[in-house]
């Protein structure tokens, strides 16, 4: 199975003709992802990626005519909220928004619209989702993955690559790797992904990669303590040395009013029985210590 994306995924790329859109679509196709459509308003009827992917003017047409059921968005911040709303309106089930720099206030009604429609929005400001050996949606490099049964969920991009590479090197394959994004307002939280992993018969262990800011890691820890007993888990939290009051690159990575520190998150996770690594390279070892046998 895997979660969110898999063999059943039929992907439409919103912004397929842009530099990023085209580059990552090629990589997704090379990985075996079924890319069934692209959108570029005004260029409907043309094709992209050397004539292999039909372009539609709207997501609704891509859904209807090409059977798209998932979308990935490579559209600049000024147009990205509208792109998400268009995908929701077209009935797309899983929407992955890679775009960075969307104002937080723009995302509030968009996240609400996704919730009401029952659509699953991942991101924004995220690297995407890969189910190794099945589908790759987003910008996570294909080379780091190995198919397996450990789920990975992360707020970060390159830090996720680091952790996944360490797992692959240690022989621990992944069921699905989900980058949920580094913004304050995101469509899918740690908690949401943990629930999906819990219900996935092909995920037997979980790695969680958090960072300073907010309280989503604490929320996830509370859920793990109650509902993931017996599931081997390991975590890493970035930002132990981050100074308070400064935004550490990600819009959401800030210690404000003394809360959102790495120490608080690590304490909450450890109290929930989750092993927390000092370095992402220790994650495979901690999973094994937690009883996981890949």
């Amino acid at each position: 199975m895997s979660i969110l994306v898999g063999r059943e995924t039929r992907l439409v790329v919103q912004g397929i003709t842009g530099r990023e859109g085209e580059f990552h679509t090629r990589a997704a196709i090379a990985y075996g992802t079924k890319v069934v459509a692209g959108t570029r308003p005004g260029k409907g009827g043309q094709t992209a990626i050397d004539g292999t992917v039909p372009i539609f003017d709207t997501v609704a047409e891509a859904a209807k005519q090409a059977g798209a059921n998932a979308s990935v968005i490579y559209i600049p911040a000024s147009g990205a909220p509208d792109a998400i709303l268009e995908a929701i309106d077209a009935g797309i089930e899983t929407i992955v928004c890679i775009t960075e720099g969307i104002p937080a206030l723009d995302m509030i009604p968009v996240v609400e619209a996704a919730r009401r429609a029952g659509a699953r929005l991942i991101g924004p400001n995220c690297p995407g989702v890969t189910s190794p050996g099945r589908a790759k949606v987003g910008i996570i490099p294909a080379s780091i993955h190995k198919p397996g049964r450990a789920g990975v969920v992360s707020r970060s991009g390159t830090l996720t690559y680091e952790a996944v590479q360490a797992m692959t090197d240690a022989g621990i394959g992944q069921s699905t790797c989900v980058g949920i994004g580094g913004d304050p307002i995101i469509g899918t939280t740690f908690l949401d992904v943990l629930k999906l992993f819990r219900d996935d018969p092909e995920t037997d262990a979980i790695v969680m990669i958090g960072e300073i800011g907010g309280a989503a890691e604490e929320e996830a820890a509370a859920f793990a303590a109650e509902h993931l007993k017996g599931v081997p888990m390991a975590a890493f939290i970035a930002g132990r040395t981050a100074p308070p009051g400064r935004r550490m690159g990600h819009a959401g990575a800030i210690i404000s009013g003394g809360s959102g520190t790495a120490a608080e998150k690590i304490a909450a996770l450890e109290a929930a029985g989750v092993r927390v690594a000092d370095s992402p390279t220790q994650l495979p070892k901690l999973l094994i210590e937690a009883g996981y046998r890949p």
Partner: protein
Amino acid sequence: MKIQEADAKSLLLAQGLPVPPWKVARTLAEVEAAARIFFDGGAERVVVKAQVLVGGRGKAGGVKLAGSPVEAAEVGSKILGMDIKGITVRKVLVGAAAEIVKEYYLGAIIDRASRRIVLMASSEGGVEIEEVARQNPGAIHRVSADPELGLLAFQARALGLAIGLRDPLLNPFVAIAEGLYEAMKANDADLVEVNPLAIVAETAADGATTHRLVCLDAKLTLDDSGLARHPELEALRDLDEEDPTDAQARRLGINFIHLDGTIGCMVNGAGLAMTTMDLVKHYGGEPANFLDVGGGARRETVRGAMELILADPKVNAILVNIFGGITRGDEVAAGLIEARARQSREVPMVVRIVGTNAAEAARLLTEARFETATSLDQAAEKAVALAKGAAR
């Protein structure tokens, strides 16, 4: 982006909030002249407040009262030039001192958990709200604005009632709460606070006293992602308080935060950049900076980033950690080689480049005789050893 109290007050005033008049002064003569205007207008005392972008001004002695223009200049001389949490005070706000009857707190934040704008109010105003949250969390009342309809009047009323406001101050409170919400939306702010929101007593010429709600302080931070559509707000950036390297980092399009350590870091990706700092510390070193060169960094960016790191005289070792996805390792390596050819001082460096085009990067770095590392932990350990060697 943080902005000064005086600028935050202007933005609240623009939304029709009751903000008493103020003047900003940079010199003692300006302080005295500003104070004179308020005394001529009937004020009995004026308040002189340090304008700095850090909290705790009052405790640090940055807020003082004065009974005459000359005394205002005297207290101004104590405040201007003083150091508050490492920031030199270069300007003060001068205004008539209010006769405060009671202080409240009112704030609007973007709440991540509920994914809504949340308004918070407390009858314990004039003190740090974080302190109230720790000591007496029940004293903070909240309402969540509807994600589509916004803040509704009944919600604002409920908030006012919860902090004990009644007729005739309840409706003015509702207007203030609505204005605060509008100020947040209009400016793409991620935080707006009025602390204190105060009931002040005002005495008319005939001796009659009336009570009124006014915003005695204002704090507003802007969502950096929203700044692009508010070019006029860019002018509110306080360059006085910026580390000079901040402006250079903005021009380069990289995230850079100056810290106190000795090991300069260059990393791609915010999470990995924080992790690299954490590992430097873990292995016994101190990071000199947070630096995220961003995705797909070009050699010019790498060169500029290296200049930023070397501009800090405390830096005695450099750690470059790149996990290439969109970023090409060979492009970074080429940038590092170019940077070293131009740099003004020699600082030992360890470079780790993995991911996209890592083999080509390794060839370039080996040819150019760079010290390299394969794993993140090894890179951090080496950098710490280099820094310790340089310090001896």
